[in-house]
């Protein structure tokens, strides 16, 4: 009772109102509009049942491939960033001069706007004049040159690589912080017992790093499922529909005025991420409360 006087609940109403109106309400509205033919050409909105979902999963359309691409992007970037980030963190953990400088450098790509990264790599990955192919030719590795963003076999891999370039430093620094919190005495004890480097990694480092690894996996996963800008800028879904992901498809539906289908796609993503998010965020809420 006294608590409610000192810390009145109505202080939170403004925040809750803004958050609900601009964040939650649109998502809930999405479920209703998913079952309608809402579009920009007519003012009347009709209930059309599952038609939008039939369109999404019909064989003549590409929506299934957008979902597959999104999942593919997410899994690939989670694995690449975690494996590379961990490897870099292990190498750079000890015996490095000018640590602060390297930290600033490796973190730099994470703070540059994704849009700018996309534009820069559009130039670097240009098949004729790009820095990457030029360098490969210069060192005599002509065979490795590719039409990075134009060739349907390479475009999506290139996008994944660019996203990894941008994000791996961030992941590495989280893991580095985790590594430095591991008590050195574990390693000393293991050394006395004659453990090999591999065993130390497997039985000490990785298990003790699990909380940090869980966090980076979650961050990468949420980032991957929401991917938009890097694809939009680098290829805009091309060649054809080869690199379209959910959010670029939603933007295209939006631009064409096909709001119903766009909303149906968005709602599906919402449902999926909210279910996964529920478990992750519950864990985060508990961690926060324990402090």
């Amino acid at each position, binding site marked *: 009772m006294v608590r409610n006087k000192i810390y009145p609940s109505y202080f939170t109403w403004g925040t809750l109102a*803004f958050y609900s109106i*601009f964040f939650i309400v649109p998502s809930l509205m999405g479920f209703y509009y998913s079952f309608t033919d809402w579009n920009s050409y007519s003012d009347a909105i009709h209930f059309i049942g599952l038609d939008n979902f039939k369109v999404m999963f019909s064989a003549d359309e590409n929506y299934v491939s957008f979902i597959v691409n999104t999942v593919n992007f997410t899994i690939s970037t989670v694995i690449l960033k975690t494996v590379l980030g961990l490897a870099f963190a292990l*190498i750079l953990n*000890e015996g490095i001069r000018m640590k602060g400088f390297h930290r600033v450098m490796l*973190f730099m790509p994470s703070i540059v706007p994704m849009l700018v990264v996309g534009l*820069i790599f559009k130039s670097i990955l240009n098949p004729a004049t790009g820095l990457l192919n030029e360098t490969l030719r210069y060192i005599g590795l002509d065979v490795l040159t590719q039409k990075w963003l134009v060739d349907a076999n390479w475009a999506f891999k290139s996008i994944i690589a660019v996203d990894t370039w941008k994000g791996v430093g961030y992941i590495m620094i989280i893991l580095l912080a985790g590594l430095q919190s591991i008590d050195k005495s574990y390693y000393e004890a293991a050394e006395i017992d004659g453990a090999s480097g591999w065993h130390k990694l497997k039985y000490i480092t990785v298990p003790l790093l699990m909380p940090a690894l869980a966090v980076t996996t979650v961050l990468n996963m949420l980032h991957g499922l929401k991917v938009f800008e890097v694809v939009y800028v680098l290829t805009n879904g091309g060649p054809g529909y080869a690199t379209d992901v959910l959010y670029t498809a939603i933007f295209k539906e939006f631009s064409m005025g096909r709001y119903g289908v766009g909303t149906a796609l968005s709602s599906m993503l919402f449902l999926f991420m909210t279910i996964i998010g529920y478990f992750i965020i519950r864990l985060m809420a508990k961690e926060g409360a324990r402090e």
Partner: protein
Amino acid sequence: MKKNPVQFVLKNSFAWVLSIIMFIPLLLIVVNSFKDRVGANSMSMSLPKTLHWSNFATVIEEGKLVQSFFNSLFYTSASTVLGIALSSIAAYIFARNATKLNRFLYFFIIMGIAMPINFVTLTKVMQVTNLMNTQLGIIILLAVMSIPFSVFLIYGFVNSVPRELDEAGIVDGCPPLRLFYSIILPLLTPVIVTVGILNFMGAWNDFVLPLYYLNDTAKWPMTLAVYNFFGRFQVNWNLVSADIVLTTLPVIVIYLLGQRYIISGMTSGSVKG
């Protein structure tokens, strides 16, 4: 630790190679922003023969950068202030008055970290609230998008501020709102600075919200302006590079000045060991 000179050299070279790989793409843009059109055609790392400062003048004029710079500055500052105001007071109440309902509401808000935004139906909300294609609309959206993570970070910090301070304030007859802004808020400075810098950079870098909700070029922030400029001047990579440099410079400067806060804020929220 064993001192192995070979290992030492290998490790340090590796660190340098990594740093260079991270830096070259950014350097490439800076180098080419000083070339003339022909020189920047190949977008190579070769240094420009003469420094064409005029590129920047051209870009500022052609790309309407002055206007979009002030737009960006306005959206970013206003949304950061609004976001912090909304997040800090809610986080404070949730942490101090942890009733069942408040714990649920805290969870409800930080669920936003995972939930994706439905941009299509958000249009409808923006139309109903008359915020479509307005500067206020973008500011509100940027602020709202920052709420979940900000509440999460500030909530953790409020718990570390001793309650005795609140009690002392109450004994002195401090009303609830003043207790918050004159006693608690100053003590939250470290986390507010971190959240502020993160949100500032997030808002500056944002491209999606104006892409959906601002049609009027006069209201565009820098990111959208640079993208549009790229569309118009694709062949002039020297100009595009200069535009990119000017767009990115503010974030890089803030990053270099506040890197301690930024790196610790972006990582400590996740690993508190």
